[in-house]
């Protein structure tokens, strides 16, 4: 039963996700996980926000991952996220939420990925009570939400929901709340080869 099963036409049937549960804190975080650059670095910004549930209450047992392009707009290809050397930008970070649902990264200012039209970062969200991970994007403050940004993902989202994908300026950086449900529910994304694109 555990051998990969063929799905007619499109390769193997993917393994499905399960909740990260409540007990990931000893395993998934690591020292320096949220500091893609050292907090004191010139040019470092803070990218922070809260994870909130359908009643607006903080989610204190969520985990947020950040994936962003290097300063040159290319996807980072350097290893070493788990043993940071203090100068290599790996593009990847991880932060468990605190009791108030806050997560926070110290990183470079988001740039426009090569071939793209506007600057954004990619986020993955996990939580107890969330049966599978969610992916979303956080665009720079000021990115047009009138459908003229030139970014196919943002412009393709229903007009009244685009703003959920745009960060707020919050010196010395940016604020981005993830609302799992309800008023201002964050837009979560899927890609063509992902069976999650089906209903559920």
């Amino acid at each position, binding site marked *: 039963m555990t051998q990969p099963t063929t799905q007619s036409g499109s390769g193997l049937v993917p393994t499905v996700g399960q909740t990260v549960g409540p007990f990931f804190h000893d395993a998934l975080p690591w020292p320096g996980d949220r500091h893609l650059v050292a907090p004191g670095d010139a040019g470092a910004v803070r990218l922070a926000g809260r994870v909130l549930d359908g009643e607006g209450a903080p989610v204190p047992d969520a985990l947020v991952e950040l*994936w962003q392009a290097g300063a040159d707009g290319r996807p980072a290809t350097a290893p070493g996220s788990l043993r940071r050397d203090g100068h290599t930008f790996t593009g990847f970070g991880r932060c468990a939420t605190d009791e108030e649902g806050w997560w926070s990264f110290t990183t470079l200012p988001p740039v426009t990925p090569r071939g793209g039209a506007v600057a954004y970062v990619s986020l993955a969200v996990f939580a107890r009570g969330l*049966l599978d991970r969610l992916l979303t994007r956080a665009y720079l403050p000021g990115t047009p939400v009138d459908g003229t940004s030139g970014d196919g993902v943002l412009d393709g989202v229903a007009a009244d929901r685009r703003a959920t994908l745009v960060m707020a300026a919050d010196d010395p950086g940016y604020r981005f709340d993830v609302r799992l449900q309800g008023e201002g529910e964050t837009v979560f994304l899927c890609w063509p080869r992902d*069976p999650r694109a089906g209903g559920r």
Partner: protein
Amino acid sequence: MTGTSPACSQAQIDDEIASLALDSTAGEDRDPAGLRGATRLDYAPYRSTVLRHPTKALHPADPEGLEMWSPVFSHRDVAAVESDLTIHPQGEPIGERIRVTGRVLDGDGRPVRGQLVEVWQANAGGRYIHQRDQHPAPLDPHFTGMGRCLTDEAGHYSFTTIKPGPYPWRNHLNAWRPAHIHFSLFGTEFVQRIVTQMYFPGDPLLPLDPIYQGIADRGDRDRLVASYAHDLSEPEFLMGYRWDIVLTGAHRTPAEET
């Protein structure tokens, strides 16, 4: 852990699970709600999902952008000893020593090479070292229950560990999680990112578990259960289990350069 509503019985949970099951009489091809191939997020038998599932459909994005690449890990990130959860400076953990191994493949059957695999689990008594685990089973001073490895050139991963015990939780009265190991995996694209759980064959708790049953399709559920593999067992040392993991299909061909 949850328990916002008055605790209900396993029988009530069983009824809810049955009422939400894919209609088995409708035949294998019917999946009108598109539930196959994914875990449902809106699944009330797992009570904590109620306020934590999105109500809107996922927004389909074109296959371009940053998510077509993935973080890169190497032996700089992970030491070889991290794949053996039974190594502890002060002594050996209690329990049934096992090895869990398998391959990580992408949706086209290509091995996922040199990528990070992370695991965490309860000890043999069903207790996590996590400070919020209040299950009154003993902690094992020689077992932390966490490991990491990198897949090899053929996509293989391997962990030596202790078989985890089932543990109680507060979803409903007398709720017990089937024995499981949590897995976290990366592919070659961030869209392939997955966290899941591996279960053990023949576990009587599987039909009763609202986390496992949140997966609508029986085949999808079965694929989270490892196989006992006698060829992996070692005389007078450990029991072997095999479990392969398939990530979603990659959008970028491997030869494409950044």
